[in-house]
């Protein structure tokens, strides 16, 4: 069981992803904005983050830069689950590596089981 931080702005999708991850046996903290996600990490460090890049106010990339600027959170793996198509990524693949983004999923084509598999794969590698 892992402690997963889910950063998802939409209430219906947030509840859905959270329920699916909980069924898979993970503990999930769900936050809707970059600011609340940072506060949440500060209170309890997650084992893994699932992040939407398209957030209201501060976007997911801003969150990543701020998150990685703290020494304690340099290696926490991040899975991007976004409406932004991989081909339209605003950041170069090299920078993704630097930001320790371990997987990128295009949300409309990613099923709940794909997310659960991706989380399990990333956690297995992290051990």
């Amino acid at each position, binding site marked *: 069981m892992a402690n997963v931080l889910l950063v998802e702005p939409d209430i219906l999708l947030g509840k859905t992803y959270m329920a699916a991850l909980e069924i898979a046996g993970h503990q999930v903290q769900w936050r809707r904005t970059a600011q609340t996600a940072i506060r949440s990490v500060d209170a309890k460090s997650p084992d893994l983050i699932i992040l939407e890049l398209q957030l209201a*106010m501060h976007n997911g990339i801003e969150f990543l830069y701020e998150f990685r600027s703290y020494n304690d959170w340099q290696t926490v793996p991040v899975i991007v689950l976004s409406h932004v198509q991989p081909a339209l990524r605003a950041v170069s693949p090299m920078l993704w590596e630097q930001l320790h983004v371990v997987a990128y999923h295009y949300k409309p084509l990613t099923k709940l089981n794909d997310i659960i598999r991706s989380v399990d794969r990333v956690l297995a590698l992290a051990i």
Partner: protein
Amino acid sequence: MSAGAARSRQQGGVNERLLQAVAEQMKLPLLQIARRAELAHLSGDHSLIEGIELTADSALRLLDNYLLSTKLARVDGSLQLEPVSIAAVMNDTAHQLSRLADQYECELELHLSGRYAPVMAHRAGLEAALASLGYVFIEAQSTRPRKRRPTIKLAAHRSKNGIVAGMFADIEGLSMDMYRRGRGLYGHAKQPLTQLVSTSGAGVFVADSLLQSMATRLRLAHHQKLSGLAATFTPSNQLSLVR
């Protein structure tokens, strides 16, 4: 190129941008439907089906509102406006949006300060515009961190130019500058109203298109201590027989 052809080409560009924004917006309800159906299978929780139906209904309404906006924009010359009871339209819109607001854990309040004379509008167009705007405000409020259920007001008040009707909420960062920038970006950017919503916010632009057909526009407005987007309508000169 004649003035008519230039106008038609410009209208074509606007319609294409609006279609892009609506197509982008439609991904969200479709995704919600797909994933919730998947979760219903995974968990065996069939109570999710009711929510799926509501999401589908709201998405269909947004599509209908978009189609109405393109139909009204195609009308040659100016659209025939008629005296419309704004209170009746707002009541119907509030009824239409109430279940969606509940699904998004928001409170929707209808606030009409006093009685109003009928305004000159296209009834179906006005209801579609207010509903489209409402979807975006509900989405915007649900995205924000909160301690309790946020309130969205569907409200009208008098101003020196006429009757102002629109959606209002306690949303930080909602400004004329943000809205103007969004109007320039929609159809090109995935998230033109960054401070407001994480999606394309198509409902705002559909509403503006519908209102433009009625010779008015969406603008930043205030109602009590809330900010919002609203349009000003001219009261009808006829006797106030419609309520």
